[in-house]
């Protein structure tokens, strides 16, 4: 299947990010005309059952399931942590600047005991949730509207092209001036940074809906809303999820940046303060929490994707 992604280079680039999704979709269309041996009786027909495709956490690795490759991955992390600890304990690196795994654990305890960490996580989670939630809502509904109605597309697409190409962080001083140091400024920043992957993905998905399926729905007298619900929405789900996956990462960037500059609160604020006080261990606590939550969220999302996309049988 050739995936045609219309629109500007940005969209094409975006579609490339979606490689895995497009491949998944492509595999569903390869079995069209090979029905010879199965035409007689469906009960005896061999039916392809298979694992639902899904990219794994470690991007390139092809066989994530095997015990050997899993063990190597775990070992890789353990070796780096051990080396870090050894270098730090033997004084090969400055313990105050580099900290150490054990030092990070101690900082973690300290931050919990002081009651700092819980509050920081809650603050960041709230900002992340509100920001990404808004971004997803705007991206999903806006994307369908822009992709489906040409006029709407003509109005908004130049703005999307401009904003998606530029580093949104450059707008931060303006947001600070217009909305002040407040939660709303942080939310606006997170939304601005994370809305475009979902938005552009949904636009591309809406435009890639198989026109033959739309004609089919119309031939059964389907009304526009019914066509949207039964054809357009289901076929853009993979694009939507691929967009959300990228948006999660962007939203985390947005959260940290906003907290650095607009509120000095949450995990981002904790990291900045710790850095200013040369508390490397605390910086690593914050960084680790960001990394772990990012991995957890992408894993959860892949589970959801696998469940929704269970029709994409290999």
């Amino acid at each position, binding site marked *: 299947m050739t995936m045609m992604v219309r629109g500007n280079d940005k969209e094409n680039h975006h579609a490339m990010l979606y490689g895995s999704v497009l491949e998944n979709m492509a595999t569903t269309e390869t079995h069209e005309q090979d029905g010879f041996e199965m035409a007689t009786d469906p009960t005896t027909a061999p039916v392809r059952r298979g694992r639902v495709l899904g990219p794994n956490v470690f991007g390139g690795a092809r066989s994530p399931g095997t015990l050997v490759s899993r063990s190597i991955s775990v070992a890789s992390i353990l070796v780096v942590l051990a080396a870090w600890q050894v270098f730090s304990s033997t004084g090969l690196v400055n313990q105050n600047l580099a900290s150490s795994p054990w030092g990070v654990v101690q900082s973690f305890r300290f931050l919990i005991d002081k009651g700092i960490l819980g509050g920081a996580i809650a603050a960041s989670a709230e900002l992340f949730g509100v920001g990404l939630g808004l971004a997803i809502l705007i991206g999903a509904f806006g994307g369908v509207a822009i992709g489906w109605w040409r006029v709407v597309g003509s109005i908004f697409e130049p703005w999307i092209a401009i904003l998606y190409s530029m580093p949104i962080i450059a707008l931060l001083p303006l947001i600070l001036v217009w909305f002040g140091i407040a939660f709303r400024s942080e939310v606006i920043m997170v939304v601005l940074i994370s809305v475009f992957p979902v938005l552009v993905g949904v636009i591309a998905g809406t435009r890639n809906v198989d026109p033959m399926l739309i004609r089919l729905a119309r*031939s*059964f007298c389907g009304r526009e809303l019914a066509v949207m619900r039964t054809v357009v929405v289901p076929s853009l789900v993979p694009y939507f999820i691929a967009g959300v996956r990228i948006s999660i990462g962007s939203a985390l960037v947005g959260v940290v940046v906003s907290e650095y500059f607009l509120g000095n609160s949450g995990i981002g604020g904790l990291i900045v303060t710790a850095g200013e006080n040369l508390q490397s261990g605390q910086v690593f606590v914050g960084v680790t929490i960001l990394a772990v939550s990012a991995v957890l969220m992408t894993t959860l999302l892949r589970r959801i994707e696998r469940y929704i996309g269970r*029709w994409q049988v290999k």
Partner: protein
Amino acid sequence: MSASVKINNVCKEFIAGSSRRGIPTVHRVLDNISLDINPGETTTIIGPSGSGKSTLLLCVAGLESYTGKIEVDGHCIAGPRPDIATVFQAPHLLPWRTTLANVEYGLELQRVPPMERKQRAERLLELVGLTSARNLYPAQLSGGMQQRANIARALAVEPHLLLMDEPFGALDAITKEYLQEEFQALVARQQVTTVFITHDIAEAIYLGNRVVVLSANPGRVLLEQTVEEPRPRPLEWKQSESFQKLSARLWQALRVA
């Protein structure tokens, strides 16, 4: 539940080229097509590519504009109608729906209540021999099974007129014959008026009560050939002398088309 179809002086033109630079070229696809199709009959339309046979079918389905007059059961065609079902060449099953849900799809769009929808779909699945595949997704079905599901979906809405656009065109020869035999028996039993587009002479004769030959560029009716053989027809009939004679006549007609 079988409709009559009256096609009167139907023309269809596509405008090619932009009007910005001089006169746009008008490409005539259908030229004064007139056909009367009797209730319960299967009319097969055969023609070389470029004869506009698919376009004619889309016009009857209400999916293309046209000039002239097309009446189905006395209703002038100006858009899709719930009593007309169309089967396209590719199965066009919704990949995220199971076979059963796909067969229910037309009924769902026509707002048939869920319970009745399911019953009717189950019955059709049985009719086309797909009951055991009811919970499989299209990607798990062979090409032949997908096309059966496609036909079941169309028949589920209990159409008075069934429009088929080369539905077996992309299947291998053996699957194709098998489905042809099942299909003509099914349509004869259900007494549904059928218009069937094909580019396969044997298929046109085997399935049709009447074969219409169209010419290419533009599409005109060259020949209308009645096929007297009563339905259902065994596949062996294809080997008979009467079949061969019809085949030779249509072949001659298509050579000049």
